[in-house]
């Protein structure tokens, strides 16, 4: 079970809701993924297009925990403003702190992320900061009392998978709160690896939404995350340089 603040989830997949080909496919993909936490962004409404469908209206939102992000924020203050707006919907008290510090790489601004996390914790939010894979930053966020740490595997939407598994492992080893690998996951193998390294969950969006068949990929990610977690719990064998036979050495006279 994944425990984030006061909430418990049996799914370890957190799914983003952007970039799907259409709402019907998105709905099917969300169901296939088994995700219980869905991320959203906060944006201006087109008040002259009130008939435009919104994904939130198409699903039973009581079945999911909403995790709004603060995407678009470049400072802690902007992130706090977005988080407050999201919370005022009355639909959520969790927030993914996302303060981008570089337009080309979309990597998070560590200083503003730390500041925003502190401010939002003070206001009583359940705070899940999206961070780079920096061990010390993860520690600092933890010390503030955040409810999970979400280091990126590689740049958002890049599909490069985990570019620095060593850092991710360091973060996981020292973590006192759940570690959710967020951003950069490309395929099921990446998600499985994240879980095998000991992550508590995976947050992904583009890998499913932009796959040729998002529904199939959603299911693949669900299974990969379950497999990776099982593998982690089972305890993999250490890597050895040379072979060790799987068949017994006794009774070899039959061939010698």
């Amino acid at each position: 079970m994944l425990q984030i603040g006061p909430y418990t989830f049996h799914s370890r997949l957190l799914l983003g809701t952007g970039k799907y080909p259409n709402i019907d496919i998105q709905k099917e993909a969300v169901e296939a993924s088994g995700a219980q936490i869905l991320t959203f962004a906060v944006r201006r409404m087109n008040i002259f297009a009130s008939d435009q469908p919104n994904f939130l209206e198409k699903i039973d939102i009581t079945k999911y925990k909403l995790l709004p992000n603060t995407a678009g924020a470049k400072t802690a203050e902007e992130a706090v403003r977005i988080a407050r707006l999201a919370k005022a919907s009355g639909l959520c008290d969790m927030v993914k702190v996302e303060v981008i510090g570089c337009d080309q790489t979309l990597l998070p601004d560590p200083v503003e992320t730390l500041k925003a996390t502190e401010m939002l914790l003070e206001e009583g939010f359940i705070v899940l900061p999206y961070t780079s894979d920096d061990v010390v930053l993860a520690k600092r966020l933890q010390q503030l009392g955040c409810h999970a740490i979400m280091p990126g595997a590689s740049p958002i939407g890049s599909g490069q998978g985990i570019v620095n598994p060593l850092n991710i492992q360091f973060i996981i080893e020292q973590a006192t709160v759940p570690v959710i690998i967020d951003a950069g996951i490309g395929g099921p193998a990446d998600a499985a690896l994240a879980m095998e390294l000991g992550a508590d969950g995976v947050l992904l969006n583009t890998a499913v939404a932009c796959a040729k068949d998002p529904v199939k990929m959603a299911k693949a990610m669900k299974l990969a995350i379950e497999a990776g977690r099982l593998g982690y719990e089972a305890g993999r064998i250490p890597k050895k340089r040379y072979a060790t036979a799987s068949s017994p050495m006794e009774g070899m006279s039959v061939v010698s």
Partner: protein
Amino acid sequence: MRCIINGETIHLPSHVSTVAQLLHHFHIHKKIAIVEINMHIVPKEDYEHTAIADGDRIEIVHFVGGG
């Protein structure tokens, strides 16, 4: 009355004087929306009696797909 809604200057008819009326006017009263006036969030329970005034900067936001 003229307000700046989501960055655009918009003329509102005289019968629109509260947040609740504003949302009705744009047919978005049943939508999941959050309203901010001059950087202050308006709680849902205050929509009926929160007045809007000429020159107000109003933001009407909602949840959209995102990761």
